[in-house]
């Protein structure tokens, strides 16, 4: 089997025996260096997917493979070294009393020697551009800065997958932008697969692939352009589409011809310029 990939094979999950299934027979593979966004409205099972990936939960049926090993109670500690996770609330995942202690927390758990830790702290703080804050206490940081520290803490363990479980949901637009910038920089610098679970449509357009969840099943899968071009399907399950995408729709109705589904303002503008010059 291919190393460095996450694979879900016929995974079904429910929290308790008499409860409804949260995930129903889910199959997908996330390969190396991919950026996958998982979207879906509340209760669609997207956060459960994240927790299954690093062994916070185990499926009742089917198997989850990370880097070729099946996730179970024996392998879970190795799996957690490979799969880093950043959660929603910036405060409730900050364990250390200072930035430096928090970045070290994961490494301490994995029993890394101290010299290596000191090195890695520097590197990972640099990667998230927070090297000046090494001695700061958490209450002196903004939400976005705390999330960047959380990312640094995950990077320090050098995982192969990073899951952002609605990591930007509690941030202001500035913090959100910072995080997405950091994440995309980091992904380009290191060989990493990114999995973002999100409501934010801007985040979705940055991904290379989108998985749309609905009622515990995969509803749709494809590139952001493909997914957003099927707006009717998305609105059917109560999901919103980006403003640019809606705008393009209205333009099409007015008779403007566009060559492709635009993902951002820039693309729409370029398209409009081309169609105008050919008119």
């Amino acid at each position, binding site marked *: 089997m291919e190393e460095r990939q996450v694979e879900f094979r016929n995974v079904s999950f429910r929290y308790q025996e008499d409860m409804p299934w949260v995930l129903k027979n889910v199959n997908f593979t996330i390969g190396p260096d991919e950026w996958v966004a998982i979207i879906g409205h509340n209760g669609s099972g997207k956060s459960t997917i994240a927790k299954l990936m690093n062994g*916070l939960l185990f499926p009742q049926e089917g198997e989850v493979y990370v880097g070729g090993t099946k996730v179970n109670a024996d392998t879970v500690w190795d799996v957690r070294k490979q799969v880093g996770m950043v959660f929603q609330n910036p405060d409730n995942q900050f364990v250390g009393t200072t930035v430096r202690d928090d970045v070290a927390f994961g490494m301490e758990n994995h029993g890394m020697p101290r010299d290596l830790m000191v090195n890695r702290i520097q590197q990972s703080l640099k990667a998230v551009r927070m090297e000046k804050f090494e001695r700061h206490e958490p209450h002196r940081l903004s939400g976005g800065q705390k999330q960047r520290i959380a990312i640094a803490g995950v990077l320090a363990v050098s995982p192969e997958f990073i899951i952002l479980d609605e990591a930007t949901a509690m941030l202001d637009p500035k913090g959100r932008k910072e995080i997405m910038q950091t994440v995309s920089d980091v992904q380009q610098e290191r060989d990493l697969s990114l999995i973002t679970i999100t409501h934010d449509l801007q985040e979705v357009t940055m991904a290379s692939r989108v998985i749309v969840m609905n009622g515990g099943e995969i509803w749709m899968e494809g590139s952001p352009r493909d997914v957003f071009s099927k707006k009717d399907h998305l609105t059917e399950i109560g999901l919103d589409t980006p403003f640019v995408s809606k705008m393009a729709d209205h333009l099409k109705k007015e008779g403007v011809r566009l060559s492709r589904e635009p993902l951002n303002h820039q693309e729409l503008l370029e398209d409009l310029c081309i169609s105008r010059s050919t008119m």
Partner: protein
Amino acid sequence: MSSSMIIGQYIPADSVIHRLDPRSKIAIIFFYVVIVFFANSAMSYGVLALFAVGSAFLSQVPFRYILKGLKPVWFLILFTFLLHLFVTREGDVAFSIFGWDVYKEGLVQGGAISLRFFLLILVTSLLTLTTTPIEITDAIEELLGPLKKVKFPVHELALMMSISLRFIPTLMQETEKISKAQASRGVDFRTGAFKDRVKAVVPLLVPLFVSAFKRAEELAMAMEARGYQGGEGRTKLRELQITKIDVYLYIVFVLLVMALFMTRN
């Protein structure tokens, strides 16, 4: 508000006392507390006081902060002094007030006990003034280390302490937020009878507790996701190190003990 918040009484400085290993500080203070009770002559008290005042001087902590630490116990010191003064009925009568004889022995004993109190509080507050709470936590973890053999959860205790320290400012900010939110809904925290004010705390505490439990749950999940599996096989970033200064401290302390026993009656 948040940038000026300092937990505990720690006064940052780069003095010899600050640089001591917290384990040494705690151990020496423990033994100091023991030997204070061996002093029984003016000279022996003098030797002990010299050590305490000398350390305070070396710590570079402004005098007013040390006084602040003594504030809550002034009354106790005064009370024990007066108690000894009036209750002791030995030796010669020194003088009498309102027909009550005060004996010389009472004066001496009262003075000695008060001085003992003063010295104890001085050295212990020096510890909290020159050591960060997290250093104290680390030192306690190390010093209690041997108890692991009898299954005492030393690591867990230290982790609990450090997480509490970490969340004090967070919960304080939250308390402020909740109290503002409740005040805007008409809860009055400041005026009214004592009973009413106590009652007004309930709508503050309930949401605070609910959110603290939610935080705890999420934190536990985040810790687990980052590979936390107890103290077993864990390495530590923060390391305590015995340096030359610590060795000097031990030498000075041994000399102190010797001087104390030479000056005793």
